[in-house]
């Protein structure tokens, strides 16, 4: 398998597939990618520049840190400020500005905020430091949620009582539905996420062609994976036959990873939740099931969510809805740069603004 894998990164092959896309595309097609790693790949490899004028790519709400609303960033900060608490978080979240302070600012002011690579790392912290309350900030889509669920099952089995989770997970299909319902970005097709789809399966997107006529292709993360998926979308669009195609079939099955879904569903259940830029979406979040209530950081530490508007000059919400491209934002590269971000899309390396800043200047 690995011997000819390099073909998926071959620049001549990329130009040849792009040329085929140009030959077959006759009418405008606007494709949204809803995975931060795809945005990163597209920007890094200059894929948009290979495409004909009929085909446009726009980033959407695919970066987990970016869709976390201001209220949830503040909530994590409120917990970090509590005495005796250690907040364990993925590194991407630490520099996202809160209403008053980022987690990095709070740490500088004395809060115990530590960066971990997984929920298991946070659980190990709880084992190593039994006198501290360890709170893991559980952000991420369906790719990440099963890993947190598995860590919680382990915590329950090992009776670890100083570990809890701030459950902020979000699920992707409801956001895609809302984007098409709003209709403001004029999206015709989705480049569907690869690793979210590994968990939830390709069938989870069938409502998009069926109800909205949107073309869908699930792509891997090599440049040729993305280009082949775009070719598939062009062919669906030209034929007037939108459906869900899987270009990433080496990983993605129609029903996803049933074991991962089973673990996820043992621990979490769907709930309404807020997204940056999209508002409250029904059944788009994951909360702990009642039998895991003892691990709920919000209840354990008596913190409450408070509505919080984003920074007045920050237009991340419009970027996440696909109605504003990063370079068209007045703050991009001026008031908002990676060293001094106004919003999360410039912080996370998967954010659309950071990708544009790093690769397209």
């Amino acid at each position: 398998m690995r011997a000819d894998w390099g073909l998926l990164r071959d620049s001549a092959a990329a130009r040849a597939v792009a040329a085929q896309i140009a030959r077959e595309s006759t009418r405008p097609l606007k494709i949204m990618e809803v995975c931060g790693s795809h945005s990163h790949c597209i920007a890094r490899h200059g894929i948009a520049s290979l495409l004909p004028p009929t085909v446009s790519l726009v980033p959407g709400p695919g970066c987990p840190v970016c869709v976390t609303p201001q209220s949830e960033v503040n909530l994590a900060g409120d917990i970090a400020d509590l005495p005796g608490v250690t907040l364990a978080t993925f590194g991407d979240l630490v520099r996202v500005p809160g209403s008053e302070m980022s987690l990095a600012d709070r740490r500088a002011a004395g809060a115990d905020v530590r960066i971990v690579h997984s929920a298991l790392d946070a659980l190990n912290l709880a084992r190593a430091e039994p006198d501290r309350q360890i709170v893991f900030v559980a952000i991420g889509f369906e790719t990440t949620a099963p890993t947190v669920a598995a860590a919680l099952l382990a915590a329950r089995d090992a009776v670890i009582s100083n570990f809890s989770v701030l459950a902020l997970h979000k699920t992707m299909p409801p956001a895609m539905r809302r984007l098409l319902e709003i209709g403001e970005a004029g999206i015709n097709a989705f480049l569907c996420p690869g690793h979210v789809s590994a968990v939830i399966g390709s069938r989870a997107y069938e409502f998009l062609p069926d109800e909205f006529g949107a073309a869908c292709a699930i792509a891997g993360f090599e440049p040729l994976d993305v280009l082949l998926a775009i070719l598939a979308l062009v062919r669906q669009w030209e034929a007037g036959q939108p459906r869900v195609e899987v270009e990433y079939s080496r990983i993605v099955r129609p029903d996803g990873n049933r074991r991962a879904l089973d673990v996820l569903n043992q621990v979490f259940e769907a709930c309404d939740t807020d997204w940056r830029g999209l508002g409250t979406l029904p059944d788009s979040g994951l909360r702990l099931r009642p039998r895991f209530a003892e691990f709920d950081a919000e209840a354990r530490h008596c913190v409450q969510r408070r509505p919080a508007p984003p920074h007045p000059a920050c237009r991340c919400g419009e970027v996440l809805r696909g109605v504003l491209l990063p370079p068209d934002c007045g703050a991009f590269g001026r008031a908002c740069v990676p060293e001094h971000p106004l919003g999360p899309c410039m912080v996370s390396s998967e954010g659309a603004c950071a990708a544009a800043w790093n690769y397209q200047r």
Partner: protein
Amino acid sequence: MSRLAESEVTEPLCIAVPCPLVTRDGPWGEVVLGESRMKVRLDLVEEAEVGDWVIIHAGFAIERVDEGEARETLKMLAEVLDPGVPNPPAEEP
């Protein structure tokens, strides 16, 4: 704004990479990532065997790579490239 230490500039949350599974012991396994070995949990891919490639995310293997399907993708690519040029011509016109 406080600055992050260099060691804290982490990979993106969502990153997930294919790695070969080289050992398996119950729910734990070891994969090779670049030059190093990494311990991972296999709770979510119970059928994974030594020799499989698995996708690693946040300390867990989240799915096995299906080699037959991987060849299908390469075949699909070859079909698009067939009348074209998998390799650049030796001389530019």
